[in-house]
């Protein structure tokens, strides 16, 4: 490996990430262009670097961008990209750390009280990341899928399904942005969501706290009977009642919606 090449690459890459603190060594390594001086030539790369990555991050968080407004989103994006420059060969990973970074750098992190709008932004960014990830995650399109006549013992949560809880109604907000309804930031209202992909379509289902607990237990145990027993104990209701409700009220709908895979 060429040490000179390594040094040059290190300088040039750093000049992209921190264009306001360019090592003089990189300028000395460059010749002027036909009509531009060397630093102006380098600036073409510097401008494009942040422009294209900022644009890509916005594509991955369209609702968060809407909520923040384009200028403020750009300011957050620039800070994020400076703090967490991309490392993956895939642009799909560009926003992987963005929700966590928002959490860790929130402006009120040391204030005695948290601001609602920041909580909402963090929630929304987490939700959008989950959608983006599920879109291209290893899926279950080839099945096997259960039917309503499948035995409970063969039902397991399908692998392309996530359970998530938020303090704000992020799915409705996201849907309103998608429909160009220019929604205002919502007030807090805790929600539990099932996010899944089936037939290459990602769908979000709001569920109750009880259903969310049932599904969370099922995710851990992959055992319907155990999850029903947990719900009976938690809700202090007879197991027979809980089982009857499962059978009559939710089972078929959840199978139809693609919550379950059929265990082999």
């Amino acid at each position, binding site marked *: 490996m060429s040490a000179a*090449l390594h040094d040059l690459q290190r300088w040039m890459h750093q000049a992209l990430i921190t264009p306001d603190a360019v090592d003089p060594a990189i300028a000395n390594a460059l010749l002027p*262009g036909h009509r531009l001086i060397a630093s102006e030539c380098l600036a073409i790369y510097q401008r*494009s670097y942040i422009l294209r990555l900022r644009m890509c991050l916005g594509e991955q968080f369209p609702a968060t961008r809407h909520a923040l407004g384009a200028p403020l989103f750009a300011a957050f994006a620039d800070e994020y990209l400076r703090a967490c*420059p991309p490392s993956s060969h895939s642009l799909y990973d560009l926003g992987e750390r963005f929700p966590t970074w928002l959490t860790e750098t929130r402006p009120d992190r040391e204030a005695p009280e948290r601001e609602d709008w920041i909580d909402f932004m963090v929630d929304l960014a987490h939700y959008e990341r989950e959608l983006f990830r599920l879109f291209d995650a290893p899926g279950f399109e080839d099945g096997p899928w259960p039917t309503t006549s499948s035995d409970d013992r063969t039902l397991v949560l399908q692998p392309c399904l996530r359970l998530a809880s938020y303090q704000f109604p992020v799915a409705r907000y996201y849907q309103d942005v998608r429909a160009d309804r220019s929604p205002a930031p919502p007030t807090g209202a805790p929600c539990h969501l099932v996010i899944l992909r089936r037939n*290459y379509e990602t769908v979000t289902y709001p569920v109750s706290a009880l259903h969310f607990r049932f599904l969370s237990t099922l995710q851990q145990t992959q055992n319907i009977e155990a999850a029903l027993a947990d719900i009976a104990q938690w809700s202090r209701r007879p197991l027979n009642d809980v089982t009857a409700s499962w059978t009559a009220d939710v089972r078929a709908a959840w199978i139809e919606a693609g919550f379950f895979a059929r265990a082999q």
Partner: protein
Amino acid sequence: MPAANPAGDPALGLGVGLRNVHFEHILRNWPAVDWFEAISENFIDSGGRPRMVLRRIAERYPIVLHGVSLSIGSTDPLNVRYLRRLKRLADEIGARWVSDHLCWTGVLGLNSHDLLPLPLNEAVLEHVAARVRQVQDILERPLVLENPSTYVRFRASTWDEPAFLRALCEATNCRLLLDVNNVYVSCFNAGSDPLAYLDAFPFERVVQLHLAGHQHCGTHIVDTHDRAVSAQVWELFRIAWQRTSGASTLLEWDGNVPPFQTLHNEVLHARAVIGGASKDSLATVAAVDAEAINSAREAASTPIDFLLPAVMSQRTWSPA
């Protein structure tokens, strides 16, 4: 179109870059395109719809894989996991060849997602040649490398790009993808002659040509891939196409991506060019005078947001 170019690879005709926004159109209409070029990174890790769509398209059209993250010139170790996944994808869809750029994209474990230029000298040739051999061993096929568009020149360069690529081909038996728009952009920015560049280029190694639009900013040109091909680039293409005896030709359009038919029509314009339209007539034919100095704000070079799927349009919310 000839059956094969001097490098012995099959000539595929006139193709277009496969873009997410055109998936539905292609699956619905199966347009009469000769072939598609798919961006490798869009598909190698895909477990969702993009890979399914690519598999379906590959059943009907020749596909070439074109990468943007191989980073053949980086001083970081090659990403072997990436290469193995790339090979698996190439095998899965029967890719006619696999290409990337003579560039580096990152260092110290970071990725700029840009195609950054290399100084061209003996030490760099040795470095890149060793990595090309390693890549070819893993991919079990020749690597095809593209000349990048460049905006800087290095003091450490002692070779010009055609000479460097010729030596690299001789050292590794790799093949070349000649991007005639990049030739025009790089030569303008460096103040050198694009015709002299073509005169020195090892055409016998070329398996593919690229066409694209650019933004002329007066003092420099940016490789924006966001508009029609300029008359000057069409003229370079005519010369290059003749010298390759008809290499597979592909149009890249990555920013402000137009409807599929517009894209297809633009690449089909190559037929008129190949048919011998004169330079003057070409200038007339070009409906969009891409050489007009564009006072609009400088666009990003080689845009990449087209790599991302429009996830928002493909999910639903079921409030029931």
